[in-house]
């Protein structure tokens, strides 16, 4: 199981260089590289876009158009915990809108936003493929099924605790 990705930037530049060197000039690998950046940086920063454009020989405007086309990439930093509420058909029929409302209320943000302390991002996802245990949410790509609006407060609290704990260890 992958722990909550820490989005510390130390050493990332060096790693990015390595990743780019492996894909240098290979335009077709653009999405793969952006995927790596999103995962490790939590978003795709402007300066990284410029480097990618230069190294991969892809026009900067194209890098930007690919980023904005795919839901997975974001231009703004995401929180430490990315909570995505599944809003596929099955989840919708089994109450996903109520789950979303509960999260909006609990976190005080709207979908595609991040809390002020950079702790939580809220998002919508179209089908995790776990429809039989709908409604689903995912926290940092980890799916959780049979969600209920009543569980939301508990989940947010648990994540806050977990984050504190992680900070202590660091």
């Amino acid at each position, binding site marked *: 199981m992958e722990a909550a990705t820490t989005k510390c930037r130390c050493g990332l530049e060096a790693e990015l260089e390595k990743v780019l060197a492996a894909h240098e000039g290979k335009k077709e690998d653009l*999405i793969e590289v952006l*995927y790596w950046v999103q995962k490790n940086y939590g978003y795709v920063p402007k300066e990284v876009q410029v480097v990618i454009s230069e190294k991969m020989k892809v026009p900067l405007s194209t890098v930007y158009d690919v980023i904005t*086309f*795919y839901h997975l990439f974001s231009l703004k930093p995401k929180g430490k915990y990315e909570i995505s509420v599944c809003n596929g*058909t099955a989840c919708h029929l089994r109450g996903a809108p109520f789950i979303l409302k509960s999260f909006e209320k609990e976190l005080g943000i709207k979908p595609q936003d991040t809390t002020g302390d950079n702790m939580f991002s809220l998002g919508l996802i179209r*089908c995790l493929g776990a429809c039989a245990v709908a409604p689903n949410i995912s926290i940092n790509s980890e799916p959780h099924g049979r969600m209920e609006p009543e569980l939301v407060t508990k989940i947010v609290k648990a994540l806050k605790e977990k984050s504190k704990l992680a900070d202590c260890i660091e």
Partner: protein
Amino acid sequence: MRCYRAHVLVCAGSACVTLGCHPVKEAILEGIKRHRLEEEIKVVETGCMGFCEQGPLIVVYPEGVMYCRVQAEDAAVIVSEHLLKGRVVERLLYRDTDTNKPIPFMKDQPSLSKQIKVAMRNAGFINPEDIEEYIANEGYFALAKVLSGMSPEAVINEIKDSGLRGRGGAGFLTGSKWEFTNKAQGAQKYVVCNGDEGVPGVFMDRSILEGDPHSVIEAMAIAGYAIGADQGYVYVRAEYPLAVEKLRHAINQAREYGFLGYNILGTGFSFELNIRVGAGAFVCGEETALLASIEGRRGTPKPRPPFPANKGLWGAPTLINNVETLASIPPIILKGSDWYASMGTEKSKGTKVFALTGRIKRPGLIEVPMGMPLREIIYDIGGGVLNNKKLKAVLAGGPVGGFIPADYLDVSMDYESVAELGTLIGSGSLSVIDEDTCVVDLVKFFMEFSCEESCGKCTPCREGLKRMLEILTRVTEGKGQERDIEDLERLSDFIKNTALCGLGQAAPSPVLSMLRYFRPEFEAHIRDKHCPASVCAALLDSPCQSA
């Protein structure tokens, strides 16, 4: 004609034969002989009883008791206990999944008896991280058969004869697609697996990729041999991280064991496979958009022709098949096209995996022969509507499909019959909605989805869906006007007729389906400002109050 006291039916469908029903039959015959029952009991071989997963199967009449997974060693007990003394052998009975009570009679079998697992044969039963378990279940035997004795043309003919059609949605004949790509000119060709299961509410591809990745790898290698490609890509959507992980592992294993790479099984055929992970765009399920995405670009569709079979990935002839389609290939090669074609209907052959979701008691994935009445799927397999509510309709094909209202529940689930109702089998999503679901609200939800996922390239989809969503939103808010019906119809018609890609053309389908089957409910929203299902918040007053 001679009368027997009892009949023993031995299922001799291909599955049971594979599982060893013939030794069982011999052993029973021997036991009958030993107990001198030849005059009283007759043993008969039958065709497939449709419960292959539990084979070898034996049914003893007149009671109709069914024994599952019978082995030759069990024959003695069946003869001495059941045939001689009339006592049912409980140990060999099938047990109900809900109650664990043994179910002696075949007619009482609930869900499973109706299912035949082809594409899903291994998923959930073998360890996807262990190639050896796959091999133990005849894995890579189809590839071996193809490479060691079949010409590419013979492989294509086998697939064509099986009648297998693309399970991703369009339902195009898989064999013909292979043939076109085989005949296309090009030094380099590609096989692409479409694992961008973007339709919300279906998850068979995920299940197969996660639970039986080798079946897809094997099928792609077979396809590569058939069309003359030595390279393949599996495109998996990013929302399925586990599937990506399992697939990556499986590809490495397959390489290690020599089922991928140079000179596979010493036959001179080479094939390499790569994974491409999508990045969250429904439209990438469309073939040309998917190829653009593999090439690392924005996933926008291109006009066809040229079809990918002639000009696909980097301009080279490319075969694109979906996960479920591919997973069905190895069994077809091993058991023959006749076996596959014997299931299903005349034009829709074989089995199809459906995802049962929504307001249903037993949601999940089921694989049944095509042509099964929807009623059987919903009630006998799915257990009926949740909380015993009244069934309103079944939504087939997800956000780009349409409704099958309760009145049409006896429709045969095959491509043609479902199309006659104005909807489509699509990738196999069946969402059950009950009396508490408002169709207008649901259709609005679908339109939201389509709007959000529209790539924005062509005018009808980009501008038209937006206006349709605005109208539907207005109607659910009680601000609908009489002309909205006409406008919706006009826009639906326009988008269906002129959008660039299949997804855009299909996007208005739920609206057209709603207007076809639930027009009064829609009109009630506009004229009476009333939501009959009491879902639309703005319209919760009774009709007399809001009038």
